[in-house]
């Protein structure tokens, strides 16, 4: 019995692991009903796997059986793999068992599609509902919406979950058509629009009365596979910008394409996708926290992000006429645009300079990365550089410094470094 459960857990975790989302932030749930659990708005990472990704939620599939045959997916119909399932009760039991041992923040429940989207969605809801109602579970729940499921079921899903998501998978409908012929773009986007609408309505209702139950308090997210189809970075970043602006998504995840199937429609050996994924995340952060727009980062002449430079440094080099800036005078928004200055250090600079002018030494103590910032700032009129450099010689200096570092996967959940509430307010997904 136990080994059977272990085997199924292994297969179902294996099928879910390509979903990169693991954040547990953005929802704060008190343990008010005498049950178990709470959700911290900063999110908490519990451990990290050997690929450096954080483990925050128990990420599993309800079943890996699927009626669809998407080219990139490890669970596609035409793959000859053992198909197993967990019952809603088993999902709840496993979650509680791990949760009580403090292994996880909650559950991330996804699934292959069995029989019909509606039937599958009902199974998921049943599992989550058992957790909330029978176990009085107040921990974090991320629930996948099954494309094509009835809008009423989507509404129920958001009632029990903290966050819901539908994966866009591919940036354009053309590639979706090619690689996932059973899914239509409409079936994916429709529930996203509905969720956005329901969240807006719910927020307004809860302003009137706190008794209205919450609907997906941690919002919705989505995921794009990068490198399986021919889209440029520009297409992807513009898409993300629209998702953030129009559908108010909390996060767009990018997943470097890893070939798990032999398929002529897919690139056999994708090149440097991890590096590309990393740059896309940097661009994504610039959109969300640094006030950049997609147009500033990429244009038709340069449709892809520079692999040798981070996008902010790249932008600064193209606008070298704006630099250097005087650290004691520039606005917060301008500070954010200086390479080597992050959200936290910009806030610290603003706070610290109220008590007197800052010198270059002070910047180091405030956490500014001087190896990049040194070329772009002055403090009390002084610069670390004797002469002003033009952008091409600057570029070669900055590249030399950045390529020493091995390309690394950006850690997908930044809550690990959250050291207090302030941090969560600025970087957290509220």
């Amino acid at each position: 019995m136990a080994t059977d459960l272990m085997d199924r857990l292994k297969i179902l975790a294996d099928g879910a692991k390509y979903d990169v989302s693991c954040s547990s932030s953005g929802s704060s749930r008190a343990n008010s009903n005498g049950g178990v659990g709470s959700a911290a708005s900063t999110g908490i990472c519990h451990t990290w796997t050997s690929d450096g990704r954080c483990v925050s939620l128990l990420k599993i599939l309800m079943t890996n059986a699927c009626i669809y045959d998407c080219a990139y997916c490890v669970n596609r119909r035409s793959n000859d793999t053992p198909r197993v399932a967990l019952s809603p009760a088993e999902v709840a039991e496993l979650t509680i068992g791990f949760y009580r041992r403090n292994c996880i923040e909650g559950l991330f429940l996804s699934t292959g599609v069995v029989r019909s989207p509606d039937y599958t969605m009902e199974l998921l809801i049943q599992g989550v509902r058992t957790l909330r109602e029978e176990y009085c579970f107040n921990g974090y729940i991320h629930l996948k919406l099954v494309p094509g499921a009835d809008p009423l079921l989507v509404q129920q899903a958001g009632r029990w979950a903290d966050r819901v998501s539908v994966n866009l998978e591919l940036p354009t409908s053309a590639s979706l058509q090619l690689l996932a012929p059973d899914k239509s773009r409409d079936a994916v986007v429709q529930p996203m629009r509905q969720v956005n609408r329901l969240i807006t309505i719910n927020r307004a209702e809860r302003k009137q009365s706190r008794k209205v139950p919450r609907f997906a308090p941690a919002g919705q997210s989505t995921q794009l596979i990068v490198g399986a189809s021919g889209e440029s970075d520009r297409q992807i970043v513009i898409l993300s910008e629209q998702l953030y602006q129009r559908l108010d998504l909390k996060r767009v995840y990018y997943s470097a394409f890893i070939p798990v199937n032999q398929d002529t429609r897919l690139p056999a050996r994708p090149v440097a996708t991890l590096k590309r994924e990393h740059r896309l995340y940097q661009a994504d952060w610039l959109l969300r926290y640094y006030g950049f727009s997609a147009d500033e980062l990429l244009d038709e002449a340069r449709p892809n992000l520079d692999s040798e430079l981070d996008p902010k440094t790249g932008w600064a080099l193209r606008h070298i006429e704006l630099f250097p800036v005087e650290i004691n005078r520039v606005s917060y928004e301008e500070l954010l645009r200086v390479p080597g200055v992050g959200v936290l250090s910009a806030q610290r600079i603003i706070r610290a300079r109220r008590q007197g002018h800052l010198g270059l030494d002070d910047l180091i103590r405030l956490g500014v990365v001087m190896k990049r910032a040194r070329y772009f700032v002055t403090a009390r009129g002084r610069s670390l550089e004797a002469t002003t450099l033009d952008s091409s010689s600057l570029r070669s200096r900055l590249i030399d410094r950045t390529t020493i570092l091995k390309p690394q996967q950006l850690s997908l959940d930044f809550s690990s470094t959250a050291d207090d509430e302030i941090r969560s307010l600025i970087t957290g997904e509220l």
Partner: protein
Amino acid sequence: MPASYRYDGSLAGLLTLYARLLAEPVEVERISATQLDQQSLFSSEISISTDQAVAEEFWQRLTKRLTDNSLKLLRRCLLADHPQQELLLYRYLLLEAEQGRRIDAMLAHPQVAPVWKLARQVGREAHRYLGFVRFQQVQGGLYYAVIRPDHRVLLLIGDHFAERFSDQQWLIHDQRHGEGILYDAGKKEWLLLPMELHEQPEATPQEAQFQQLWRCYFSTLAIPERRNLRLQQGKVPLKVRVCLTEFGRTVSAAD
């Protein structure tokens, strides 16, 4: 001439020392925490003996005067495990006596920056330990966890676990500092106590099963093509792993 001071290592002792030193600010070279009965090799060291009343009065005054921010900083630094924390804090308090509330924004000041950095380290470690605690269910239904943090983070994480696991009996044992938090699910309160482990508690059979499941899940979750052990080690340092189920801490079940 800067002098060296010594106190008995207790909080009251340290506060007594601060009260005395700040009354007539002097230059201090070293503050060490040693039992007063241990003879020091350095005869120049001045021993300050603990005075409960002085300490309490000083603390009262301090908490009234400091901003919430400074107080938070102070609390975290007091929980730090750093060879110079007493001295760093003294220098901070010295500046505070001079500057008052303005000290809040003086982040880059040489007397503030190190204290602030230390407080951040403590806070960050406390946050990490919200995730790095692994309970195992032992005979009698108690959930028992061992941690070995650099700083004394227990006081900073107690409330979080008390809320989250309010219906279960649990204990978090900081073996490095010899103390632990015991939560009483009946009274809904927790207590920090000095603690020592004499024998390994016996885990329930169900516990062994969950630990196996968790290890199996954890090893399945990694994507081989993305393997990055350096990143992993930066996130989960080896010293933390001894207390984590998924890195092979073995269960002490009866069978």
